[in-house]
């Protein structure tokens, strides 16, 4: 299998800000690379370089076999881009938007019309297709923008945060569309801040921070880098956390992390289910009330934390309702 996207040592500076700091990556044909990183990590900048919108200060990049700087037109013929913010003409209808993009890919009038109809269908926009896009909701705009990136059925697709702002149903729909495209041979590079999205869609994940890839591999490989399973204990209100911590220290061999507020303790363990039984016995003997006890595989969030030293959402400026919900979940659990 060939390589559809290859970047080596990309550097891009904005004054003193280093947006890309020697980023290298490689995507095999017909696979999905998830570029995972917090705000400001350089995801969008990388996408802009790879889609010929931005010249890097140094480094090289090849997309679909062509150098992005030397043969930008050849690259453009073979890529679709859906940027972080929907780029659609608000005063054209959804259908007209798609037809215009088709004409600009030189598909011809009839074919452009056909493609527009197909894509409206696929993205659940048939009813709204003949309304001007100004009347669309955020999610509809997002879907129209994605549809626009697919008009020419490009072999390589760049999606910058494709599901940000979509409701759960649309998000699942989007995942299906992306999986379907990849099955049919499309190569996809997508950026995301959602670990579950990367986990679910990407064949390979590249974790990006401060303009460089700090780890890459399959979701499983990344998880095993962080180490084994962990014991996750939530103590009932009233039970002394110190006692619980002492018990876990004995089991894990190191002091667990303790979150006073949510009364939650986490510690690494080597053994399997046997450890769990032992933990229940010891905690019970020590008189610690157990609200919840589980053995957890590390999540990508843990991967992120251990690689970057901060949570994937630490730098979020304006939390979405989704993030707020998650935070709410954390603090009440």
């Amino acid at each position, binding site marked *: 299998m060939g390589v559809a996207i290859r970047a080596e040592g990309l550097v891009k500076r904005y004054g003193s800000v280093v947006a890309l700091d020697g980023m290298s990556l490689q995507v095999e044909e017909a696979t999905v690379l998830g570029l995972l990183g917090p705000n400001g990590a350089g995801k969008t900048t990388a996408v*802009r370089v790879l*889609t*010929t*919108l*931005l*010249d890097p200060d140094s480094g090289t990049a090849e997309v679909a076999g062509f150098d992005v700087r030397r043969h930008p*037109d050849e690259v*453009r*013929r073979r*890529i679709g*881009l859906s*940027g972080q*913010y*929907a*780029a*659609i*003409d*608000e*005063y*054209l209808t959804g259908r*007209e938007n798609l037809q*215009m*993009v088709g*004409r*600009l*890919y*030189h598909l011809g009038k009839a074919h452009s019309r056909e493609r527009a109809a197909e894509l409206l269908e696929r993205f659940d926009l048939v009813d709204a297709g003949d309304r*001007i896009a100004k009347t669309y909701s955020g999610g509809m705009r997002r879907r129209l923008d994605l549809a*626009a990136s697919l008009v020419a059925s490009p072999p390589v697709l760049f999606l910058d945060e494709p599901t940000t702002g979509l409701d759960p149903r649309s998000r699942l729909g989007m995942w299906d569309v992306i999986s379907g495209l990849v099955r049919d041979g499309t190569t996809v590079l997508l950026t995301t801040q959602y670990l579950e999205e990367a986990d679910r869609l990407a064949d390979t994940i590249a974790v990006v921070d401060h303009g460089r890839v700090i780890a890459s591999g399959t979701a499983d490989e990344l998880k095993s880098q962080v180490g084994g399973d962990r014991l996750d204990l939530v103590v009932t209100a009233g039970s002394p956390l110190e006692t619980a911590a002492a018990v876990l220290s004995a089991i894990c061999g190191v002091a667990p992390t303790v979150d006073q507020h949510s009364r939650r303790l986490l510690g690494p363990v080597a053994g399997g289910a046997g450890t769990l039984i032992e933990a229940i016995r010891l905690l019970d003997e020590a008189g610690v009330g157990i609200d919840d006890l589980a053995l957890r595989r590390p999540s990508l969030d843990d991967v992120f934390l251990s690689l970057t030293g901060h949570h994937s959402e630490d730098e979020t400026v304006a939390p979405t309702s989704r993030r707020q919900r998650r935070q709410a979940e954390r603090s009440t659990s």
Partner: protein
Amino acid sequence: MTLLAPEKVSSRLSHAVNDSLVLTMRHLRHIPRIPELLVFSIVQPIMFVLLFAFVFGGAIQVAGGGYRSYLMAGIFAQTVAFNGASTGVGLAEDMAKGLIDRFRSLPMARSAVLAGRTLSDLLRTVLILIVMSVCGLAVGWRTHTSALSITGGFLLLLLFGFAMSWIGAWIGLIVPSTEVANTAGFIWLFPLTFMSNAFVPIQTMPSWLQTVVAWNPISATVQAVRTAFGNTGVAPTRGFWPLEHAAVVSVGWSIVLIVGFGVLAVRRYRTASSR
């Protein structure tokens, strides 16, 4: 860059034409959907015609003809210039909305977004000139020349407007936001139009200013249009070479501006980016 095979050149050219037309159509579709834009860009010149006709109309004596008739060419040129400059606002908006990014990621001609925009703005200028002419006729403006000559006058105005549109396109691409485009795109037009013979005869100005005014592209255009319409009165041009050859100078200016700012704008477009 290596030499291109002829068939490649011709397919490039046909792509450039196709892409520009697709975008021209895009803008024409906008017109009925944003009626306010058209209404205000028509109301403004009507307002100018009426204001100048009734407020200034009697104030200045122009030998050999009424000031109103003398003024019309000036108001035409001013309107055409301002209208051209509005090209930049549209482009700045496309940039802010990320549409330029989308277009730049497509395999389309580099000049098409700009050409599509300037061409559709040219069509809008045609419409505005028609409305203004009707309005002018209603307040007493008359032409005194052949249909051919009058057509020539309007063509000069359109060519000049097209040139201003390319300046506007360049400004639209260099400014950081739509808001800036709205001021930066127009502010330079005030000295340009007022330091010309559009509203007052050149003889009324201090002599150091007269040379500047004579070489102002607006002056040549206004002078040529006045001549084409037979509205010169006895506004003497003697001693001012650009005004003695006004039509040629106006066309020359327009071509130089189109080529110069066309190159600048397309070059800017190649690296234009929403942030």
